[in-house]
């Protein structure tokens, strides 16, 4: 009984510190350290000039708060092509030999040749497409306003099915033999691609976030439940994995890991999908008010776009090395034009592809 009481009190303690901004505190610690370093340097100069100078230089060279660059950083990703798409690009995906871009006005999906950057065709889809997932035999389009998921046949570039999904659909993932749709009503709908019908609706709790498939299971961000949901496709059973200060944001799978662009603490969280345990928290560079937004794995790296609330802030693309769990490159994609609407990102065909309303274009980057 006392054991249970102590555990409950420990849970209350955990909740009491949830509002503490760890990155702000880390910056404060850096400021304190710099002040102390300055004071130390002045005092040391007064004592022994030569030795003090050497001491300050040594401190600076080993300052971990300033970040330690990798020994041999890769060449930065560079923009090689900008393909104008002026009717509000929202989402991008790669698959079946093409790059697919969804736009908001009009509501189309463009098929683009990754080799030439030329548009091949455009397909009208229900309003407003916010997420795409491409496989070998289908491109799936999420249209929350219409309350549906549409299917495009890449062999004919035709819209072949529109599947109603109840409960305000908000997230999309494909894998483990099905199409999975998170809804704002707190469910994940399972669509059978053989029949193009919703065959199961799994309650997951309030306000589910990003969705992906990793290691044969479906993972969904559940910020209201303090972590991640793991759905076993065999029985559509949900298990909640508690992850402290996580998980609100997009998910991606790859490099034998599950990645969470965690807006709660501004880090990229790496989870081992075999155990559900956190393997690392990647600290993303803090630039103005940028937070991680979208994440994708491909071309040997994890790619994260940033989101900022303010007009004129930078659209950033961070490259994270999955071997070291460190940011090895930051690419500035240009200022946001209005509302800080962030980019979507995809990887494939030797490139990283960034699309966004603020960019009015699809940007092809050469990975470093």
């Amino acid at each position, binding site marked *: 009984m006392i054991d249970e009481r102590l555990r409950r009190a420990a849970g209350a303690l955990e909740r*009491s*510190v*949830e509002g*503490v901004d760890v990155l702000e505190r*880390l910056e404060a610690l850096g400021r304190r350290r710099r002040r102390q370093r300055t004071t130390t340097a002045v005092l040391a100069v007064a004592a022994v000039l030569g030795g003090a100078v050497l001491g300050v230089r040594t401190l600076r060279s080993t300052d*971990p708060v300033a970040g330690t660059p990798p020994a041999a950083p890769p060449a930065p990703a560079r923009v090689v092509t900008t393909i104008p798409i002026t009717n509000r690009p929202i989402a991008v995906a790669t698959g079946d030999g093409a790059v697919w871009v969804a736009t908001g006005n009009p509501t189309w999906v463009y098929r683009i040749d990754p080799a030439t950057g030329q548009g091949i065709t455009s397909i009208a889809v229900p309003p407003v497409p916010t997420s795409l997932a491409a496989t070998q035999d289908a491109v799936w389009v999420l249209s929350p306003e219409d309350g549906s998921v549409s299917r495009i046949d890449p062999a004919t570039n035709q819209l072949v099915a529109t599947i109603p999904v109840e409960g305000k659909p908000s997230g999309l993932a494909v894998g483990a033999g099905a199409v999975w749709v998170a809804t704002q009503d707190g469910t994940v709908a399972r669509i059978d691609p053989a029949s193009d019908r919703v065959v199961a609706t799994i309650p997951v709790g309030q306000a589910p976030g990003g969705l992906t498939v990793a290691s044969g299971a479906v993972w969904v961000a559940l910020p209201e439940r303090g972590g991640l949901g*793991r759905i076993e496709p065999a029985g559509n059973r949900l298990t909640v994995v508690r992850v*402290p200060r996580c998980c609100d944001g997009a998910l991606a799978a790859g490099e034998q890991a599950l990645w969470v662009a965690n807006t709660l603490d501004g880090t990229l969280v790496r989870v081992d999908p075999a155990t559900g345990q956190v393997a690392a928290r990647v600290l993303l560079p803090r630039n103005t008010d940028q937070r991680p937004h979208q994440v994708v794995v491909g071309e040997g790296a994890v790619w994260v776009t940033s989101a900022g609330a303010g007009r004129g802030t930078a659209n950033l693309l961070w490259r994270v090395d999955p071997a070291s*769990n460190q940011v090895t490159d930051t690419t500035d994609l240009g200022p946001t034009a209005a509302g800080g609407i962030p980019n979507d990102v995809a990887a494939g065909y030797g490139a990283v592809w960034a699309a966004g309303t603020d960019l009015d274009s699809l940007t092809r980057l050469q990975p470093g």
Partner: protein
Amino acid sequence: MSGEWQRTVGVPAVHAGVDPLDPAAGAAEGFEAFYVREYHAVVRLAYALSGSRLAAEDIAQDAFLRAFRDWDHIRQPSAWVRKVTVRRAGRTVQRRLLEARALTRLLNGRGPAVAELPEQDAQVWRAVRALPRRQSQVIALRYVADASVAEISQALGLAEGTVKAQLHRGRQALAVRLATSGEDHRD
């Protein structure tokens, strides 16, 4: 489904990528990553043992600042920073000084980010703090930091047998204290 999926806080267990018992952990992990991973857990520990939400963050921050200074020489940073925190949290004079610093910030409009505990839970931690010092430290490390006997032994420099004995006595004393004061709300 195995019990692993239901694990909650458990800093050492959850963060499997960095084993705090690994002697090379400090060298392999950068300070920033260590800080982000551990900061909330250390603030909780400071709050439980000091009882001051005003001073908890400063106690933790001071411990991390010390860890930063000695980073190259610390072999087990998780255990190290907990050890410094439990010592500092128990020092009344130091706590008062840190509270004064926090009050100054409060007057400047920057209140503590740590929230007040519900009274029922605050009573439990008051009872823990009223225990003999070693017992309160062992109980806090066990329940707040989810540390194993081996990890507590390492953090406090005690034999494992001593840790087990202190845990047992501490739980017994708490059960009596909370029951006597009518605070052990049995469900």
